[in-house]
């Protein structure tokens, strides 16, 4: 594993499987009376959120607390950032306070990468979503959920599984991270969206593109709906919500076209009635709530693997652990 987790593209197949397998073990913890491990005792993790987020922030916070880390929540609102402080100065402040890791969400794509490449911070940087760029832990929890349903077992990947991602691909960091990670794990990814919501240059991505959801459904093992990001819609990307809903929304009739074993996923928050009908959202095939629980396990795994071991010099690759070493 590298020192930071900025992009899902940084993860090799082995790294990704190590995270998923570790998460699988850590998932057991949620069933225990004492949901806590002493692993990160004495380590400080800062949640640096420049953009509103309840789900991801809470998920990281729960993961950090379950590993006994000291958690500091820093949100841009009401902090010096709103007074005009730069990212660099914020980072230097956090460094001076002894942060071992910074979980950063930023509205600007590339902010976590800037932080990771700079020498402002000695700790690990974990990208919790940057602009329309990436959201690697979301992709990991999606892959974890898919593996549990489609190919359960430690050490297994998603080879040959067909994943369809539907909706606002243009603005979706979830889609970007997922396409990298899922292809690394051997899955075939198909994007379905109105042409206006497909990013320029998508033909260079390792995926298929379709504009017809109904044609793709029977060949889908996992269907991932994306939220239509109204807050990023600065132009008319589709005529009406009704038209979007009719062509790309998920309803009971479309769900019936999916193979029996297929699951319906959504990174949340769902816009019911437009992207997904209540019938689908509340069906047992919809994994939204499960994804939230898996998010905690996966984030614990990432935090443990980045922070749980020795702290190494700048960007140095830690020596590989011999399998025998775990023996004693």
């Amino acid at each position, binding site marked *: 594993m590298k020192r930071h987790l900025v992009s899902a593209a940084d993860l090799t197949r082995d790294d990704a499987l190590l995270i998923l397998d570790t998460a699988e073990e850590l998932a057991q913890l949620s069933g225990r009376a*004492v949901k806590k*491990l002493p*692993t990160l005792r004495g380590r400080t993790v800062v949640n640096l959120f420049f953009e509103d987020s309840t789900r991801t922030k809470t998920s990281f916070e729960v993961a950090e607390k379950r590993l006994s880390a000291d958690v500091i929540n820093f949100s841009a609102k009401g902090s010096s950032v709103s007074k005009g402080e730069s990212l660099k100065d914020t980072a230097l402040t956090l460094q001076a306070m002894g942060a071992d890791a910074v979980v950063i969400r930023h509205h600007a794509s590339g902010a976590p990468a800037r932080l990771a490449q700079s020498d402002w911070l000695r700790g690990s940087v974990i990208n919790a979503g940057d602009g329309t760029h990436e959201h690697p832990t979301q992709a990991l929890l999606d892959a974890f959920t898919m593996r549990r349903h489609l190919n359960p077992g430690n050490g297994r990947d998603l080879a040959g599984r067909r994943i369809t991602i539907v909706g606002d691909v243009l603005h979706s960091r979830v889609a970007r991270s997922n396409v990298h990670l899922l292809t690394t794990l051997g899955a075939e990814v198909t994007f379905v969206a109105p042409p206006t919501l497909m990013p320029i240059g998508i033909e260079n991505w390792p995926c298929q593109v379709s504009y017809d959801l109904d044609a793709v459904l029977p060949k889908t093992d996992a269907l991932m709906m994306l939220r239509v990001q109204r807050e990023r819609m600065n132009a008319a990307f589709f005529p009406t919500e009704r038209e979007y809903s009719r062509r790309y929304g998920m309803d009971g009739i479309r769900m019936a076209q999916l193979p029996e074993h297929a699951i319906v996923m959504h990174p949340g928050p769902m816009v019911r009635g437009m992207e997904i009908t209540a019938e689908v959202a509340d069906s047992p095939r919809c994994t939204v709530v499960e994804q939230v629980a898996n998010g905690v396990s996966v984030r614990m795994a990432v935090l443990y*693997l980045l922070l749980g071991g*020795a702290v190494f010099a700048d960007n140095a690759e830690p020596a590989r*652990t011999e399998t025998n070493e775990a023996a004693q």
Partner: protein
Amino acid sequence: MTAHHQSAPRPPHQVLDGTDIARVVTRIAHEIVERAKGAEDVVLLGIHTRGVHLARRLHAKLTQITGREIPLGTLDITMYRDDLRLKPARALEHTEIPADGIDGRLVILVDDVLFSGRTIRAALDALSDIGRPRAVQLAVLVDRGHRELPIRADYVGKNLPTSLREAVQVRLSDSDGVDAVLVGDRDYTARSSQALAAPASDTHPSE
């Protein structure tokens, strides 16, 4: 003996073979039944990796002796180790607690080598997060001494006084293809679990 001879590493020699290990497991199983008065509330927990194989063997023996199914589980203590910051983060093994839990039961931890006692310390911490056993006992195949914590075993296969220069290798057919316990100088045993756990003299030798 010359200085040259003193520094030359000795090759590992075998102290227990397959038959010895089988006999030791049988003896420990009988001791457990005797001390735990029929082993009615016993739960066996093997500590990864070789402790798990030994726990399975003990479990088979206990079932044979008592005619009852003794609950068997596995314990990974990685997240509770005190040397996590000395090495890269390692992959986790599978912890499996029997369905009825460990509350009010006599938990017998099973491991291959008892050395510094730090593994057992970590296992005790892990246990307290999982439940509240009536009592905890420890069964080990080999006790090689050099304790760094006030911990002792209740059932010992073989007491094996060693020097810190030496490494004890336990090989079990389940993971190594052969049953044997070997003792040799650390330099000879690059693949030994102890040698890897304490590669340099400036780190704490852990088990």
